[in-house]
């Protein structure tokens, strides 16, 4: 039962609002009538409907309706804004992961032998930072997971519900095993280098001499560093994508950078304060 709306109504509603709400309004109108007159009355006496429409109550209803629609519109806009923020957050997290991927992949780029030294003991990092945080030249992967665990106990909101705590524990366990494997690979190189480098008493059977031998050993080390970098990125990616919710992942990434910076600043100050490493001459027996 669709009719042209009375002029009164048209005057009090803006056209566009009317167009959008026309269908709903028709339904609502009918509801009001049904409420006031009962179903039967409205069916039997359609003139009552026209009559009702002219009353002040009708105007009140219309205003309420407009307010309602306006409110709906505002709420939807706010939701849309939030969604947009979420998408922006998602983009930012993805972008940051990509930056980490690129950062951790730099070991894959063919490097000069002396770059290997920089990767292991970077000049920019004070020794105390290296001692506190690093393993094979950068963040220890299991320490990244310790960071997540630390945050989850206090400030992360919802990620650790359900099976995510178990997932994190499993990831930490596996990462520690992989770290131990790489520790052994590195130890193998460090312990057998004496047999492969050119100044050992026993001439080695394989490889060349001089710089060639050194380059070959450094390439082995570079390979271990590459594996360590992959392990770092894997831990980071799994934490951000599988373990944490989007908000918590963002919080983790902020803490990840922040804590590294805090340790770096602390270690730099410490290095200046301590000066170069010294040895007590008296204790050595030369004093």
């Amino acid at each position: 039962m669709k009719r042209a709306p009375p002029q009164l109504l048209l005057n009090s509603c803006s056209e566009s609002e009317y167009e959008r709400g026309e269908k709903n309004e028709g339904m609502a109108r009918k509801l009001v009538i049904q409420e006031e007159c009962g179903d039967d009355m409205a069916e039997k006496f359609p003139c009552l409907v026209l009559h009702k429409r002219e009353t002040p109550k009708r105007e009140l209803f219309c205003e309420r309706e407009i307010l309602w629609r306006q409110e709906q519109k505002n709420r939807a806009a706010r939701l849309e804004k939030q969604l947009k923020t979420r998408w922006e957050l998602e983009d930012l997290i993805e972008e940051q992961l990509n930056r980490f991927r690129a950062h951790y992949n730099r070991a894959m780029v063919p490097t000069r032998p002396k770059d290997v030294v920089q990767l292991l003991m970077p000049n920019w990092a004070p020794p105390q930072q290296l001692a506190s945080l690093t393993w094979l030249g950068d963040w220890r992967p299991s320490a990244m997971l310790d960071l997540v665990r630390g945050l989850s106990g206090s400030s992360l909101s919802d990620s650790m519900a359900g099976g995510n705590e178990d997932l994190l524990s499993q990831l930490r366990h596996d990462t520690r095993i992989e770290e131990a494997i790489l520790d052994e690979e590195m130890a193998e190189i460090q312990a057998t280098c004496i047999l492969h480098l050119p100044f050992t008493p026993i001439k080695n059977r394989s490889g060349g001499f001089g710089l060639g031998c050194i380059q070959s050993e450094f390439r082995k080390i570079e390979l271990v560093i590459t594996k360590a970098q992959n392990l770092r990125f894997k831990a980071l990616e799994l934490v951000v994508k599988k373990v944490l919710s989007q908000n918590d992942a963002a919080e983790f990434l902020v803490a990840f950078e922040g804590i590294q910076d805090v340790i770096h600043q602390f270690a730099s100050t410490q290095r200046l304060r301590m000066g170069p490493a010294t040895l007590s001459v008296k204790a050595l027996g030369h004093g």
Partner: protein
Amino acid sequence: MLKALRFPRKKTSRPFKDYYSDWFKTLKNTLLPLLRSSISDSSPTLLSTHVEMLHHHIQSYYHALDLASSHDISQLLFPDWRSSLEKPFLWLGDFHPYLFTNLLRSFLGDTDEEADGKTDVFIKVGGKNCEFFDKPWEIAMAWKAPSKIMMSRIDQIECGLRLMVPALVDRVRNAQAVFMKRVVQHWVWCKGKKEAARASIGDAVAAQMEEMVSVFLDANRLRRSVLSEIISATNVYQAALFLVGLSQFLVGLRDPDLLREFERA
């Protein structure tokens, strides 16, 4: 009195870098040449003295590392006074203890390979200059038919290492894990404010460094004891060749020509 209080370090301590430089010069310019010459033509008594001197020199270096660890352990774990060639081969601040046993095994392995006697053992132990070509018979035959007692002692040393090394690696990792846990706590308490967090992590750093000192001392103890055991398990000729091999390695990694070539590569 006031001066002594204001500049106490100048009188009682010196930079480790300087100590290491002097230590290295003594090794390279005095003790290694002495041992080399006594390998070639000295009496067993003199050889034994020179072996003992070089061994003591290396032990004194580990002793110095131990003493310096109370000042700033982190610089000893990542020493900037070691050469670019050495740095990647450092494990807890110095060479891996497996390196000592591997060097020893390499002498023994050589003997096995040459059981048929076709290869001249003089060349093998002599290095590129065949410096011991004219050495006494005892030196030439030093690694022939090693005693069973010595072999079982080497097995024991390696067995001990296989237990100790992973335990030390674990302790480093655990110290880092505990440190991270504490730092995150501070981070949360400080609501992510970097300044406040930096001001509050001092205790966590100190606790971790304390544990690192303990690990470092144990690592040095392990290196020292492996060296001592090798020297005591071998006879004086074997010990002399072992120490020359180890010293040549230390000297070689700081060879200026090689380092220049390396920096240019």
